[in-house]
């Protein structure tokens, strides 16, 4: 437990080290990055075993940092942050394994990557709003460089859009938090930027102001969580990002936004929450259905996954605002589950398929018997797809089920519409599986000569069928297999035994800080 803050420091140190190592060789940079991520994951898992779930935050470090305005360097964890810290470790390690093929400016890639990870760890441990904000912004800037430099399709546009959306969102958050602090300090009582102090200060706010501040802070965070209609950065950003970065984006960065809503916006401003609850719930449901339908008609394989992320994050937001313990715990579980599954999906699409076939167009992929050329990728994607649809046995199932039950308790209508979203998710996932991997199924049996496609040159282009190389693609490498096993193992483990995480999450939600959240804002 006491070592947990070192995940932050080690990640930043690893960033500098891999920058230096990258000057020597790409392999050294990779090794440094992997080692850093594995050690951090090890620390977080060790802390997880030691972790005793109780209501409220358990302080790790609390030092006075800045005198005026009073700010403490205060790191603390509870069951919710513990869940997400473990997720960060898993996603970061898997992401590095799937970035093993980065050859260009490798050291810099992993430096930005680890800086981002360090920021994410920091956010999940911050118990001071200022510190939270600092780490939150540290996590934003590296994303721009990761995408703009190592990305693909329309990368500069995607990167800039993502950076500006995130920065604008964090601007809203900053305005709201500073305003709250200012009101609290006007009473004359000593006040720090600690979340508990700000919560006390927010109680003195007039209802009208609280409604505005809640909107600033919540929608600022929700931008990063991909809440409809603030989600438009997400699909373009995910598509443009290199595989490792899109795994992180969908896996942990979007969780930063949702976590910010849960940790800061909802507990601090109950009156504002009560005012906005219905609106947010409807936006979340619209996002689930809308993004699912958009995913259903995408031509770019990665856009399918990008929109599916928005749809799944809609469940998280719905669970958060459903204002009961079941839905909220389901939302946190869904954060973990989606982090793992989305990482897996992006890994298959971005690394396993795109890096080999150099196309993501479903038209082109359907012309290839990918299930034969890349059986491993097909296998992984089918499993990840099942997990993403919410099949029992995978982590998506308990998460979405608890969210739906919890939502039903709040409003049966919303629960019903969200349940339709699960069907839509099944539809777009099955379509993606079918069109991309099983587009051209031949006879069963070994890949014999009659099945082989003719030479590409012999195929007239006028047929409208896109040529693909006959030679099999390079086989799936070991780092990819390792990363896949890591993520698949996590989703199956939590799918079979969700109590592992729920036993952390539910006590944490019983903390007094979340009372208002679980009662829909009424105190």
């Amino acid at each position: 437990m006491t070592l947990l803050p070192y995940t932050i420091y080690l990640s930043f140190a690893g960033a500098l080290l891999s920058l230096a190592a990258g000057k020597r060789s790409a392999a050294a940079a990779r090794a440094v990055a992997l080692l850093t991520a594995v050690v951090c994951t090890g620390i977080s898992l060790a802390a997880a075993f030691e972790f005793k779930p109780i209501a409220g935050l358990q302080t790790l470090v609390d030092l006075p940092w800045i005198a005026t305005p009073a700010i403490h360097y205060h790191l603390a964890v509870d069951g919710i942050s513990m869940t997400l810290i473990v997720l960060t470790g898993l996603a970061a390690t898997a992401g590095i394994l799937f970035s093993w093929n980065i050859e260009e400016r490798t050291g810099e890639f992993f430096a930005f990557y680890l800086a981002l990870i360090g920021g994410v760890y920091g956010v999940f441990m911050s118990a001071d709003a200022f510190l939270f904000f600092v780490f939150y912004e540290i996590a934003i800037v590296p994303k721009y460089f990761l995408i703009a430099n190592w990305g693909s399709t329309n990368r500069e546009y995607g990167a800039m859009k993502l950076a500006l959306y995130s920065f604008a969102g964090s601007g809203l958050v900053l305005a709201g938090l500073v305003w709250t602090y200012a009101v609290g300090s006007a009473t004359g009582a000593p006040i720090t930027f600690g979340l508990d102090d700000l919560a006390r200060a927010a109680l003195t706010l007039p209802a009208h102001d609280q409604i505005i501040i809640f909107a600033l802070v919540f929608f600022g965070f929700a931008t990063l969580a991909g809440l409809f209609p603030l989600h438009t950065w997400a699909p373009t950003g995910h598509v443009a990002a290199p595989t490792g970065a899109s795994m992180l984006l969908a896996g942990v960065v979007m969780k930063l936004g949702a976590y910010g809503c849960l940790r800061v916006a909802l507990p601090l401003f109950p009156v504002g929450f009560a005012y906005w609850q219905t609106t947010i719930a409807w936006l979340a449901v619209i996002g689930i259905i809308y993004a699912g339908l958009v995913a259903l008609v995408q031509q770019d394989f990665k856009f399918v996954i990008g929109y599916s992320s928005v749809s799944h994050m809609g469940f998280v937001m719905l669970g958060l605002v459903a204002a009961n313990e079941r839905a909220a715990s389901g939302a946190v579980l869904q954060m973990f589950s989606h982090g793992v599954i989305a990482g897996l999906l992006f890994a298959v699409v971005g690394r396993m398929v795109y890096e080999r076939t150099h196309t993501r167009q479903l038209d082109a992929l359907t012309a290839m018997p990918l299930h034969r050329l890349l059986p491993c990728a097909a296998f992984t994607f089918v499993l990840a797809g099942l997990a993403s649809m919410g099949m029992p046995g995978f982590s998506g199932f308990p998460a979405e089920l608890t969210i739906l039950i919890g939502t039903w308790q709040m409003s049966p209508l919303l629960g019903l519409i969200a349940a339709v979203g699960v069907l839509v998710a099944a539809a777009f996932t099955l379509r993606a599986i079918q069109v991309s991997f099983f587009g051209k199924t031949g006879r069963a049996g070994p890949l014999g000569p009659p099945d082989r496609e003719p030479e590409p040159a012999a195929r007239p282009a006028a047929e409208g069928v896109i040529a693909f190389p006959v030679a099999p693609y390079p086989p799936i490498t070991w780092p990819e297999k390792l990363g896949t096993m890591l993520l698949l193992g996590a989703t199956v483990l939590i799918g079979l035994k969700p109590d592992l995480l729920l036993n952390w999450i539910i006590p944490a939600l019983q903390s007094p800080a979340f009372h208002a959240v679980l009662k829909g804002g009424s105190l």
Partner: protein
Amino acid sequence: MNADYAELFHALLPETALVCGALFILFFDILWARHHSTDRLRFAVMLGLLGLASAAYLAIDGGTPGPQFGGVLMLDMMTLVSRVGVFALGALTLALLPGTTRLRHSAEFIAIVLFATAGFSLMAASNQLLLGFLALELASLSLYILAGFDKSRPESAEAGLKYYLLGGMSSAFLLFGFSLLYGLTGSIELTHIAMALHQTSMTPLLAIALVMVLVAFGFKAAAAPFHLWAPDVYQGAPAPATALIASASKVAGFTLFIRLLWPGLHDVAGSIASTSAPSGWLTIVAVLSAASLLLGNLGALAQSNVRRLLAYSAIAHTGVMMLGLGVIARAGQGPILYYTITYGLATVGAFGVIAVVDANGGCQRLTDLVGLHKRSPLLAGCLLVFILSLAGVPPLAGFFGKFAIFTAAFQLGGISGPAGWLALLAIAMSAIGLYYYLIILKQALIVQPTDVVAPIKLPLPAAFALFTAAVLLITLGVFPSPLLGLF
């Protein structure tokens, strides 16, 4: 006035050291260095740094705090921080010179930098209208010369002339305002003016005086709508001169006007805490702030020349500084001085990078930065820190400065008054600002050069200066208390 000249001598030791240093550089250059053309610049820079270091030592060590020489000078924490700040910024500027400048007469350039710094230092200490004006003129005249120093480029002459004409006009405004103040209060001592203003109320004549003074201030600080000289001067002047104009002169200028406006004219300040509060010169400051924030940030979006872009960014930053000036009533001088000094560090750094790139094939357009990460990784890394600090990304110092000012602005009256609105505007504008800062970084760090680029050989003093500035920005950002806690 009891004329205690020993006291005056002690209080002015830093300026004396600078002027002596400048004269010595000139003598040394004429008598010895011009016969040794390879070492000429190096010796002048070393002597200049020595002068600045001794001035800083004398500023920290010497003089009892409090009013000096009958209140003409004021030695307090603000004087000290501001003096040390301008000496440090001047030293960074000097360290950039070897290897980056093709200026002839480099010894004269350095001597004039020292004269300008002496002017800044006097501005920081002066507590009287006349001395303040003279100090400002000493600094400004030096800067006009520095802007036009590069005789090989017509743009430099244009910059010098433009700066001189507009600056001269603003000085006239300032002097007119000062003379009205003198006429109204019967004194040029800030303490006496404050006492006299305490007993009078706002009159039309006083309003005119305040407008005159603030117009001049707007000119000097490049606040919109008096900003028009800035893009041309930043573009045309030699890069080290721009670094000084953009950094140290801002620190000194804000110190001078903070002292003039807050202790001197605070009775006619009015308030920007709420809409119903009485209006005074703070109203004008708020208008300047809003105009600068809007014009600077939106203007920067359209720029393709990196120097002009940084000039518009400077205008935007002036907007935040104006807000910082407005919140002194609540938060003291800490946030505004922290902001100007860290802004100065980032700007000196950014123009230092431009100076180095300029010496290796020119640096005007944004695309001239392409491939910097290949040409010199250290330079690209430093530029990353400087630009992100200007953009206000934590944990760099630029962020904390903004944060402290915004917090004070909200504390002044929530969002029920202009202070809160300005803070909201500034936050919104910094999201826009990120766009153009990322455009700079995109060119320097991401865009791949189309053909082979020559590596940049970074001269050791410049490397040291840039690295120091970057480390300072990170350290001050992570640990702002040592600087903020001084006030």
